[in-house]
């Protein structure tokens, strides 16, 4: 295992120098916080990551969950982790004080979850879902639900889940078949099958609380008939005992990676005695669930960036130690071999990883900051922040997920044959990260969300706000001579994105929806590169300011490294926008106007 999995200096740079989260502390909602409390929280998260999570990263993978006698059994440390997270207040860190939370800025909460995820991503499946489910109950549940479930969940004693997917309804939620029958006794009778439910059942907790989507008998068809139910594995009775609620785990999946956390198949109401409690109003379940889903999407992006971070540091450490070959300019075989970090191609792979990881992290913290400002910022600006967050959520989910796969792959490549062996951590990072482009909405779904909904919503205002943010960054960067060429490049990238957007929208206006969205994933890819380029320019501005002001040798190296990575990103990655834009500006319908017989061979 490598000695480092996340960069603390980098986190401070992003939080305080790039995104200036100290500005939040002057808002009344965050007035109890200061840099000192946030630093203490992050320091403690780092300790937990280092001492409690990282040592079990490999072991939890090797001892994957088993399904025995109707019960999912996980590594015993899961219980300790959940307890520590619960007792330490980590599961409720960004929830309001009045519900027992610590009202931490989402940006700081995300920074902490970055450290947890970089140390042991599979372990964060348990905590992330519990927090998300508890937040959903807090937002839309009844007081009774809040009293009965939230304290146990936030204490890490009860697991929360998000139970949406069914065998015939994965990305297509309108085809859900789970049913809820009113009983007139304060609950519904639930029947249905759910698949791919993360942490859906395990022995690291006393109980599991499913936030489940189902259709009430006689409700409208499609997504308009979906309601949200709270369905516990065991029902808490008035005397505090727990009664079985006819929820059965039927299997655990055997996965490529993410093995430390069980993904389960669940059956509800086999014995006709499963009780579900309606959350919010009937038929509005999907809109409620989107709250949890949007939080989870940012969480997924963060976990992908975190795995990429751990893989980057592991391969960096290896590259600095592994002796192999000589400089091309001095091939004398009597000379000692050089560390492979001396070779330009290895450096390229390292910068690729660093650019993806730190660019993604910056974008995710930017989104977190928008979430904080949408909640607590100037009332007149809140809608703008909400729209920016809505627009960027599919980007911040999918860019780290897709590019993280490539990034970890390059890390593995640096280790050569060793990278492919289980004695080194890269192969696990490679397996673990693959899930992120799939769960919480595949990349394809994110592409359609971005182009089909987010770009169009409110007459395209979100996109205009975004362009305004990019323009603002360019304006700031122009104050520094060294950054001027990159201002030009970012401006060009923004124009390409605008042109591609307009061109794709012409198909929508003509009602050619299939063609409009056929290449939505490519549009998302282009948008992702643009958004991360924007973040790199912001980082370059902060680094230039750091260099301009007096700083120590070590800080100088850090800032110069940031500028070099920014340049890497523009010279190696931003150029890809040209190819993507070229495709998006074409007008054919290659993927639409064709017959599947073309696949015959």
């Amino acid at each position, binding site marked *: 295992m490598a*000695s*480092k999995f996340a960069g*603390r*200096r980098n986190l401070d740079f992003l939080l305080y120098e790039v995104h200036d989260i100290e500005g939040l502390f002057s808002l009344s909602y965050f007035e*109890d916080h*200061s840099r*000192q*409390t946030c*630093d*203490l*929280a992050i*320091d*403690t998260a780092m*300790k*937990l990551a280092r*001492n*409690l999570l990282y040592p079990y990263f490999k072991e939890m993978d090797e001892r994957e969950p088993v399904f025995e006698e109707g019960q999912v059994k996980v590594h015993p440390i899961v219980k300790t982790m959940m307890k*520590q997270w619960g*007792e*330490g*207040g*980590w599961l409720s*860190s960004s929830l309001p004080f009045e519900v027992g939370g*610590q009202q*931490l800025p989402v940006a700081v909460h995300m920074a902490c979850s970055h450290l947890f995820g970089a140390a042991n991503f599979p372990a964060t499946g348990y905590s992330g879902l519990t927090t998300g489910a508890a937040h959903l109950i807090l937002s839309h549940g009844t007081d009774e639900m809040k009293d009965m479930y939230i304290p146990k969940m936030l204490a890490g004693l009860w697991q929360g889940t998000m139970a949406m997917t069914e065998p015939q309804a994965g990305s297509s939620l309108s085809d859900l078949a789970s049913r809820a029958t009113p009983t007139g006794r304060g609950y519904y009778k639930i029947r249905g099958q759910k698949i791919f439910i993360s942490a859906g059942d395990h022995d690291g907790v006393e109980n599991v609380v499913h936030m489940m989507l189902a259709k009430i008998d006689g409700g409208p068809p499609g997504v308009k008939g979906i309601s949200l139910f709270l369905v516990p594995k065991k029902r808490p009775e008035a005397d505090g005992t727990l009664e079985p609620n006819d929820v059965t785990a039927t299997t655990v999946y055997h996965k490529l990676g993410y093995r430390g956390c069980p993904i389960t198949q669940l059956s509800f109401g086999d014995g006709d005695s499963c009780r579900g409690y309606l959350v919010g109003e009937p038929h509005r379940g999907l809109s409620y669930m989107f709250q949890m889903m949007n939080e989870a999407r940012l969480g997924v992006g963060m976990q992908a960036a975190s795995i990429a971070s751990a893989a980057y540091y592991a391969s960096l450490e290896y590259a600095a130690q592994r002796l192999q070959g000589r400089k091309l300019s001095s091939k004398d075989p009597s000379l*000692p071999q050089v560390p492979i970090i001396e070779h330009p191609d290895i450096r390229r792979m390292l910068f690729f990883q660093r650019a993806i990881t730190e660019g993604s992290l910056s974008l995710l913290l930017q989104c977190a900051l928008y979430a904080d400002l949408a909640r607590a910022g100037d009332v007149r600006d809140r809608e703008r922040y909400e729209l920016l967050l809505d627009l960027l959520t599919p980007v911040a989910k999918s860019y780290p997920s897709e590019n993280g796969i490539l990034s970890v792959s390059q890390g593995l490549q640096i280790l050569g044959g060793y990278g492919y062996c289980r004695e080194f951590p890269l192969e696990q990072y490679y397996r673990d990260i693959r899930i992120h482009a799939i769960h919480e909405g595949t990349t394809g779904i994110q592409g359609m969300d971005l182009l089909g909904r987010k770009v169009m919503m409110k007459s395209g205002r979100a996109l205009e706000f975004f362009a305004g943010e990019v323009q603002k960054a360019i304006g700031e960067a122009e104050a520094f001579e060294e950054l001027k060429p990159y201002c030009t490049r970012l401006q060009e990238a923004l124009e390409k994105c605008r042109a591609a957007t307009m061109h794709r929208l012409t198909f929508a206006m003509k009602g050619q929806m299939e063609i409009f969205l056929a290449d939505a994933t490519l549009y998302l890819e282009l948008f992702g590169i643009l958004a991360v380029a924007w973040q790199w320019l912001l980082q370059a501005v902060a680094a230039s300011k750091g260099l301009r002001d007096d700083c*120590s040798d*070590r*800080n100088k190296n850090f800032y110069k490294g940031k500028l070099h990575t920014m340049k890497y990103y523009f010279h190696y990655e931003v150029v890809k926008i040209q190819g993507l834009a070229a495709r998006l500006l074409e007008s054919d319908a290659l993927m639409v106007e064709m017959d599947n017989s073309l696949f015959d061979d």
Partner: protein
Amino acid sequence: MNVAVLLKQTPDTESVIRIASDGKSVVTDDLKWVVNPYDEFAVEAALRLKEKHGGSVTVISCGPQRVVESIRTALAMGADTGVLIDDPALEGSDSLGVAMALAAAVKEINPDVVLCGSRAVDYDMAQRGPMVAELLGWPHLAMAVSMESDGKTVTIDRPIEGGKVVLESSLPAVVTFGGSHAVWNPRYASLPGIMKAKKKPLAVKKLADLGVDGSQAGTARVTMTSLEMPVARAAGKVIDGGLDTAGKATELVRALHEEAKVI
């Protein structure tokens, strides 16, 4: 039972340490500072005493303002109050000077027991505990890996070569802590603890406030004359030079005899 913990802030053990141009100090500009790990064991032991006997835990430290962060860390773990002795006179001081200041602060609080790490991970002086005990005239139990107290006496275990020794003393006493992270398993600060720590009392004092003569405590009797990094290991030597096996063996024997001088 009232407990005082002496806490030192040290560079994070994962920090890259660089020696300053004067050759006898380290560059502190961008170091990450933490609670000395052995003192963290003492904080944990103090909180266990408080859980058992009630009372309060006071954390006492010397140093500049940045040390506040480490005191707050201990407060976030569950300690009750903090005292920082921040006096420019101590800047050129030595272990004895620091011990004088700490002992004076302890006297003001008058605790039942004083706990601290047996050493600090920066300079490994291992003097603070014994010196404070001497200045207070209290017994000193060194290098504890476990500790019990009934409120009147204190008992510790210390591992020794091939076994362990159990020591007991009446209170008040000074106990210094050895062992490891795995032995003490110090608790993590909780987020509610962090929020509470902000509001816990933390007094900043000068030497004069404690009745300590700055010229005496600030005069170093022991001075650090130089700091050196471990000698870098030289690269290994590969014997090849187109020789056959016998030739390589001959060359190896020659090198071991004439260059390494080990045979």
